[in-house]
């Protein structure tokens, strides 16, 4: 054999051998391309969804939300409340232990609740009702309120912005600082030594985890792990993600690019898994501080000018992945409500034009920010611009990258001085389940969400909602909050959409929840 041929054959054989080794090593290792690069590992320090999902792997929560949105116990074994609803007593279930082997105690829980409540919006509201903790023993603690807080279970069991339980030594870290110890008590153990920022995050099954006996449902029920190892593989390029899935190098793409769904549906060895059934919602947010949107009549005109169908057909495009939803609460969830006053979700440029004339609008430009690098969002502002202009608005569409938009939306100055008038974003439906968790209904002024709506009436309704102890009362206050938000036009709901995960067909199971959770998945050969 000629030397050159020998070398070539040896090289090819070597490469094939390497591929074979890699393939065999893939068994029982689940490789997932997350929705974004995992950068921050502290789920309290940031509200980024990818960090929240990382949190679900390694931490556990006191309660969880099942697939129907009902709150179910998770770390808690039993709980009771005093007749006046001021004292809540919780007992942790047996067998709970952190990854370092130490048992989970009441002290760990109370410290974790305090750190969570320093950053989370619902937690902040909870603090205004909270009086003190009483630690009864290692497994039992009490929360004593100054006045009844009807959302206690919802606060500790909500799937987005969850209250993860950490060891006290970690939870004592101020909420303004990042934690450096990632010890949890959840179904996976984070391998800090194998974490390669920008490349992969590695988790191994927590063999000592004691799942609940109930079947998994949402973030509640048994968190059974059937793989030995889970890797979050960071691949930025959507085409490379798809190629890696096709070649079997990864098992799941958490959020494929919108234009890939048609291809994915045609691939025989891939299935689509709706991990977050209620999906997400597009919304237009106004700057309440400066003209023109400081005038509620102009906000109403903008609301009437915008139609969901055009937005969704342009941005999401794939049939079956979007839905018209006039309720401000996500359609298909607990407080969905079709009583939406003047808001129909259908563009009505004639009515909007009439309102503009009544308000004396003189064509002052509206500065609308558009993130060109955010594929899941970048087309929406183009449609919104067209619809606003059809109603008579003058729109100054400014293109920028998403990070610039994030920085600019924090500026309160008028648009001409570096501020803004409106921007579009989307948020997980799990964040919009009720008026307390919905950031767009944060009407606490300068302390609140971007746009800085200041509305004492809406805040009072939210407090009534939080204090309500019956479901009927909560529904009543949720409806009142929705009508108030529409009347003052806190935001415009631009429709609901879904981004199912793409999963190789040898991976079965999967749990649908208000967040992306990765238990209940089996990997076949």
């Amino acid at each position: 054999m000629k030397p050159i041929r020998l070398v070539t054959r040896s090289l090819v054989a070597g490469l094939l051998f390497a591929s074979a080794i890699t393939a065999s090593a893939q068994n029982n290792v689940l490789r997932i391309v997350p929705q974004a690069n995992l950068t921050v590992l502290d789920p309290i320090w940031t509200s980024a969804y990818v960090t929240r999902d990382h949190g679900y792997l390694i931490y556990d929560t006191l309660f969880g939300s099942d697939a129907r949105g009902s709150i179910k116990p998770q770390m808690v074994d039993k709980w009771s409340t005093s007749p006046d609803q001021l004292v809540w007593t919780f007992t942790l279930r047996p067998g709970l232990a952190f990854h370092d082997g130490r048992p989970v105690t009441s002290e760990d829980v109370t410290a974790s609740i305090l750190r969570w409540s320093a950053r989370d919006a619902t937690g902040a509201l909870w603090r205004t009702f909270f009086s003190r903790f009483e630690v009864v023993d290692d497994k039992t603690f009490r929360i004593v309120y100054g006045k009844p807080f009807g959302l206690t279970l919802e606060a500790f069991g909500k799937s987005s912005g969850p209250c993860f339980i950490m060891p006290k030594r970690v939870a004592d870290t101020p909420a303004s600082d990042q934690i450096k110890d990632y010890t949890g008590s959840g179904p996976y153990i984070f391998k800090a030594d194998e974490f390669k920022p920008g490349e992969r995050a590695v988790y191994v099954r927590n063999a000592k985890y004691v799942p609940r006996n109930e079947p998994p449902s949402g973030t509640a029920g048994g968190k059974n792990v059937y793989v030995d190892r889970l890797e979050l593989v960071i691949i930025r390029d959507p085409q490379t993600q798809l190629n890696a899935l096709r070649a079997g190098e990864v098992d799941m793409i958490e959020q494929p690019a919108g234009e890939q769904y048609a291809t994915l549906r045609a691939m025989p060895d891939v299935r689509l898994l709706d991990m977050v059934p209620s999906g997400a919602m597009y919304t237009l947010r106004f700057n309440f501080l400066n003209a023109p949107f400081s005038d509620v009549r102009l906000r109403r005109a903008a609301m009437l000018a915008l139609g969901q169908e055009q937005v969704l057909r342009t941005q999401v495009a794939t049939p079956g992945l979007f839905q018209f939803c006039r309720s401000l609460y996500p359609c298909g969830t607990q407080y969905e409500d079709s009583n939406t006053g003047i808001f129909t979700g259908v563009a009505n440029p004639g009515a909007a034009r009439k309102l503009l004339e009544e308000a004396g609008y003189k064509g002052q430009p509206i500065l609308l920010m558009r993130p060109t690098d955010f594929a899941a969002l970048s087309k929406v502002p183009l449609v919104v611009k067209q619809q606003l202009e059809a109603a008579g608005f003058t729109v100054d569409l400014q293109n920028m990258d998403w990070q610039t938009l994030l920085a600019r939306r924090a500026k309160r100055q008028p648009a001409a001085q570096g501020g803004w008038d409106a921007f579009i974003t989307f948020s997980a439906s799990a964040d919009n389940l009720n008026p307390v968790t919905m950031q767009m209904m944060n009407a606490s002024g300068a302390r609140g969400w971007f746009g800085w709506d200041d509305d004492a009436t809406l805040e009072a309704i939210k407090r009534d909602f939080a204090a309500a102890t019956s479901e009927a009362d909560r529904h009543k206050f949720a409806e009142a909050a929705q009508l108030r938000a529409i009347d003052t036009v806190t935001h415009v709901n631009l429709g609901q959409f879904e981004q199912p995960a793409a999963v190789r067909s040898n991976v079965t199971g999967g749990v649908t929840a208000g967040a992306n959770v990765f238990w209940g998945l089996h990997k076949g050969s």
Partner: protein
Amino acid sequence: MLRFVFSRLVSTVPVLLVVSITVFLVLRLAPGDPAAVIGGSNATTEDIAAIRQSLGLDKSLLHQFLIFIGNLLQGDLGRSYYFNKPVATLIAERVGPTLSIASGTMLFAVAVAVPMGTLAAWRIGGWLDRLLMGFSVLGFSVPVFVVAYLLIMPLSLKLRWLPVQGYVPPSDGLAAWASHLVLPWIALGTVYVALLARVTRASVSEALAEDYIRTARAKGVSQTAVLFRHALVNAAVPIVTVVGIGVALLIGGVVVTETVFAIPGLGSMTVEAVLNRDFPVIQGLVLFFAFANVAINLLVDLSYLALDPRIRY
């Protein structure tokens, strides 16, 4: 020569200082706020203010600059806002894949382009020259990501010979390491093959017209020896210069290749840092790239001593 090396190294100090100040100011004056990115979509204005404070971004520009320079003088590039790790550690973790791509790409380019350019120079104006230079134009014209996808489709998706993406360090096995890098080397190397082949062709054809080549031929030296021992060696200085520049460019500029093949190198790290406004990481990377450029240029200059005995420092 030692004096030359020393003076070159000393001259890098003001260069790095100017680069540091420029990068620091440009980053702070450009739009974007890392605290807003870290906070996430649901962060309130208060949350962002708290994060700014914890990162020290609420301090005056001068205060921040003095901290930065003070740390730099102690060899501390700072900590990433996101990863909670020293920047030097992050760069050390990512430099391996980038060096693997850069060195492999350049080896591939040299191995293909130098014989190609030499042959083209030997038959300048002939069909071989036209064919090789036609390929060179094609190499320049087709973007790297197109070449990458054209390679991935048959070799990775159809034949399953090579992985689509990812990186394995050499410590995990040379075969696995090479199998992950073959496609990036070829995809990225195509442009450098085109560039180097043209430089080699021009340089060798110039050398072939020299008197000493005529003398060698008159003495009966074989065609191969004339081409590779006499013409190519004498034409090596411009080729080595282009190789040096290429390596320097590859170390900081393989963004597209690293993205397409999901290789966690310095290029993708730069993009992530810029998108996230991770100021300490961007500053550290720019300083590293500046230093790498200076060092590579110095090595290229020193290599001239070996290639051309007439050169003295």
